[in-house]
């Protein structure tokens, strides 16, 4: 078994590296440890727009990344340690989280923290989630990865993951909200590095962990994968399953009812209903047609409206779309 402590903290690079290792290193067991800068990571088959506050994400510039495994949305920052385990898949098992989660629980135990497996794929301390896990199985190999909230900023987590007040309908995988907490709160004194050391001990035992080193050529491929897939809008946003969105809001003194159908991140159909005064001002019939094909992005919709009306009205109207 080999291990790699990923040097970078760019979430897109790290996801590309994880995929590369999963696809190419088929003969060994690999343990990867990695941390990202502030970012939001959604599950492979999720609807990004349903999971995050798009307006907030676009305004703050926080990166949104889609991973290759199933499950829900999580928030990463430097206080969160990610671990990935790649090994052969035993075809008799499916969705079995126990063997992967057990060493983590042991590692926490060795730090004096009593954690337990909860809800099939979470790890919790006293009922509050500290680790979410997900898996993907392909070609006889399994990638299991999970987060470990060591010292994460849980406030920002809540804010970014709260979409607006519209109603979404889709067949996307939905996140399951849980009460979360940080591991650090249950330790007297410890650093995230110590947690890493304990994890290595739990997986490798007394053996000295063998580090994995990639060649320059391999690293180049990882960068290319990052460019071609992980950093693209098409993968992160466009891959969202199609969905409908409905919301009733206020703009220019009128109630506005919006109904959208979004496919591959682009507005595919749009309905705007408001009272006559506002309809004159914004020419909603025309807007409905012209919005088709525009990305379902706060910035894009706002830009569209500000071309033909005052900024404050454009902003209020855009708010009805998210």
């Amino acid at each position, binding site marked *: 078994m080999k291990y790699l402590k990923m040097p970078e903290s760019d979430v897109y690079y790290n996801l590309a590296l994880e995929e590369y290792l999963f696809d190419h290193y088929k003969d060994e067991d690999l343990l990867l440890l990695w941390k990202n800068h502030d970012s939001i990571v959604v599950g492979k088959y999720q609807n990004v727009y349903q999971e995050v506050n798009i307006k907030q994400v676009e305004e703050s510039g926080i990166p949104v990344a889609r991973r290759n495994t199933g499950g829900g949305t999580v928030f990463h920052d430097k206080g969160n340690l990610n671990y990935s385990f790649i090994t052969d898949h035993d075809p008799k098992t499916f969705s079995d989280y126990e063997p992967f989660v057990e060493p983590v629980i042991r590692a926490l135990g060795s730090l004096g923290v009593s954690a337990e497996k909860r809800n099939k794929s979470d790890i919790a301390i006293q009922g509050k989630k500290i680790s979410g896990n997900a898996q993907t199985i392909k070609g006889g190999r399994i990638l299991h990865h999970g987060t470990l909230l060591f010292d994460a900023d849980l406030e920002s987590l809540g804010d970014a993951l709260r979409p607006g007040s519209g109603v979404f309908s889709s067949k996307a995988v939905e996140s399951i909200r849980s009460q979360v907490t940080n591991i650090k709160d249950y330790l007297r004194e410890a650093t995230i590095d110590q947690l890493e050391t304990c994890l290595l001990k739990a997986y490798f035992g007394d053996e000295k962990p063998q580090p994995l080193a990639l060649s320059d050529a391999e690293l180049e491929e990882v960068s290319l994968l990052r460019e071609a897939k992980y950093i693209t809008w098409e993968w992160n946003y466009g891959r969202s399953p199609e969905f409908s969105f409905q919301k009733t809001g206020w703009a220019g003194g009128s109630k506005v009812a919006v109904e959208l159908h979004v496919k591959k991140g682009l507005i595919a*159909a749009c*309905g705007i209903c408001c009272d006559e005064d506002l309809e004159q001002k914004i020419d909603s019939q025309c807007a409905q047609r012209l919005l088709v094909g525009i990305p379902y992005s706060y910035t894009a919709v706002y830009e569209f409206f500000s071309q033909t009306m005052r900024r404050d009205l454009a902003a209020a109207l855009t708010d009805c779309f998210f």
Partner: protein
Amino acid sequence: MAELIIMPKLGFNMNEGKLVQWYKGEGDSIKKGEPLFSVETDKTNMDIEATDDGVVRKLFINEGDTIPVTLPIAIVGSADEDIASMEADALAQLGADAPAAVDAAAEAEAPKAAAPKAKEPSGSAYDYEIAVIGGGPGGYVAAIKAAQMGKKTVIIEKEHMGGTCLNIGCIPTKALLRSVEALKELKESASFGVIDVDTSKAALDLKKVQERKKNVVSQLVGGVQGLLKGNGVTIENGEGVLKDSHTIEVGGKTITVENVIIATGSDVKNLPIEIDPAAKVLTSKEMLDIEEAPESMVVIGGGVIGIEFAYFLSTIGVKVSVVEFLDRILPMVDEEITIQVTGHLTEMGVDIYTSAKVTEITDKAVKFEKDGKQQEVGAQQVLMAVGRAPRLDGIDTEALGIKTERGAIVTDNTLKTSVDNIYAIGDVNGKAMLAHTASMEGIVAVENICGEKAAMDYNKIPSAIYLQPEIASVGLTEKQAIEKYGKVNVGKFPMLANGKAKVAGEERGLIKVIAEPKYGEIVGVHMYCIHATDMISEAVVAMRLESTAEEVAMSIHPHPTVSEAIHEAMHAVSGRAIHF
């Protein structure tokens, strides 16, 4: 030869899978080993490869559809093969389960279709047509019913779906009692011929009991969530605050609603007496989590909750004393049954003090006044089980103009409150604090909102008490019936004359039927016997259909069953039981 591809059962516990991605479309070729589709379930996603070369001839479901395992999802075969009969079979199997037909042509048309007509703002200007505050047995049933009746529904729950019932009430209590039943059966197994098992050391590992309980609860909670989602109900997590009759604030959002159903439930009541802070006083909530049995326990309150816990604790070896304010325990049940149950508990070693008013709780004892004298009973721990009071968190009844009486929201028998578009169901209206009442109230409230005439009948609500043997009753006790009708006809049947009870080895108890004199209509049925809680429904149905004891006696009850005792008791009402 064409192959019928099915949703694979990848794991033992997998019942359904979500088809998250098709890698090929109809008409595409595929090679052996190439991934054809991807399945996700429980956060694990897996690519499934083709087992042979071929062409994808038909796809039966769309990306994003969830379908039970082993149902057909595609056909792969050679390009020119006749797959008509395989296709017809598959469609027949899918029958009701087939998601909207996969029609590639129609799919491509969708974006060009007329823009969806957004709802007119005036008229249904609300975010939701029905909002349910509280996700317990009242709330979640109301939400599902509302969705089934076509209403846009949201349900707001601050803790767990299933409310008190699923999480800290009915279900966990019964799980604990089931474990006790298993222990009891094991200890009595020798009399049934089981040998070579040393039952003297058999005991309950409360930690394991708790594990099982937690498992049962979490599965049921998940089940409720699944039902809500499956019916298209929007779930909001957080405490719902009713700002005005059409606005609710929850989790930082504000939502507007046309109708509100308040289902916020109830909390444990406490006695207004002096309690030493060093005394270990528990409520049913803490009791349900116990992992270590105390040596002794005083149970304050001889109602259902108090008696069920007294029974549970006594069975696992705790010295229990019950202190009850009224003149008998289990006041909702017929007097004859109370007498028998009191006898049974006393046999088990439980001390019962009735007509006793608790005055003080110290760290060593519970002091009470009985027959004009001050008495006390010592114990390690105390269980406070004196009832529950409606919970109005997030509902400022005064500000909203909602009438309350003694802390409960006042409702009529359509569950409407004093505010036209606000309904209140379940424990919060204090009428009959039982889960099944809440559920029925939820359905009645929703039907009324939808314009149908429906009303609650509070006279035929069954109650169930899970000792062994069980107790169940519906309607009036003998005493209440005499007060109402003067003379009544009573039919009784003792369990020791019932064959199945004898075979089962539990002959304690009796079944009692009370009928009014004029038409012979059944007005009360009380059972103390094994399977009572499962059998009482027969009585509820009979009473709802205004049946006479004679009519039930003319219905054949199978042999050998405990329900024959009901049959006999019905005969006994007119003095003609056969077997006693």
